[in-house]
């Protein structure tokens, strides 16, 4: 953990452009990974996530 903190601190202090790129990519990747994991977990739990069309069809039925 300390190594991660030190590395980030070093990039922040000396390589700003690289730090900015890593920040955006890290947060975007974290978002995508979390979205994927949570989607997988909900499908595993059997929770259906119907699209609007399906919902409307169900309501019409």
């Amino acid at each position, binding site marked *: 953990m300390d190594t991660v903190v030190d590395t980030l601190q070093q990039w922040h202090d000396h390589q700003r452009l690289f730090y900015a790129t890593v*920040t955006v990519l890290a947060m975007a990747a974290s978002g995508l990974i979390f979205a994927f994991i*949570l989607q997988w977990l909900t499908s595993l739990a059997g929770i259906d996530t119907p699209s609007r069309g399906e919902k409307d069809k169900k309501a019409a039925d």
Partner: protein
Amino acid sequence: MYFPVAEATIALWYLIGIGFAIGVCGGFMGMGGGWILVPALMALGVRENIAIGTSLAQMLGHAIVSTSRHWQFGNVSIKIALVMIPGTAIGIEIGARILEALKALGEAHVEHTIGGLYVVLLLSLAIFVYRDVRRAWRRAAKANAAEPRDGGTAADEEKTSRLALWAQSLKLCPCISCSIAQIQSISVWVIFFSAIAAGVLTGLLGVGGGLVRLPMLIYLIGCPTTVAVGTDLLEVIISGSYGTFTHALKGNVDLLMAFYIFVGAAGGAQVGAFATRYVNGTQIRGIFAFVALIAGLSVIANSFLKMQTLALVLIVGVTALMALFIIALLVIGIKQEAADTPGA
């Protein structure tokens, strides 16, 4: 835990907890939550520039999680978002330049002008949306009295505002249709110039888009509330990416802190997004009106009465309460669905 970029020691449970509450409200109302997180971090000794940059970074992550969920629910209109993006960027630039021009007149001048404008905007939004919600509830009550229904109320049927109907009747080419937003035809220019107007306010007031864009999408463009939430969140990804990059270049982002807040927010965003399945648009707008009112009061307390603690308690307290309320709505909705399912 000590965060060297922010030069502050903050308990992880606080970051994850506040992230969770912001995530719940964000997933439910299509907000980034910067207006809640920035004062909450500043109260712990984080400098304002770091608080803003870190807030934008976590916003980017949690908006991706929320948008993916809303995408599954069919709540994201790519067409409208694509037209809005350039308009928002131009508007933010115009707003930032107006702010610079105001700053040239003097810092104190800026604080009061911006604070005043912010309060007027938030309170007007709160009153406008509240009146609309009250009308919808009355309509629902009348309709239910005339023809009682087994499940749901007439409030479930959203009525397009008169302003949106007028905007949709303007036939300035090119026009687009959008089946997700249930819009048969709307001029691209209406969406573009609306986005510029929202962008100007965002750039001028320094708030994320949610507070301004959500009512604009509902009342001016004519999107159903849930579609407005999903489309707004897609916009938050774009503005969040740009904001994170520019702030990180200036050294204003603590990546590690942003990540811990994001962990809480990602979980909360799922809860908020799921809750939109079990409530109708009127309920979302009603909660939005209440949040806008509290945000306005907190700005009055912070900028005009100089009562920072009261402002913080108002924001954090109401966010936590709203998160609990939304979770309760979700639990009630799930129970009701289970009871309504045949054979359950």
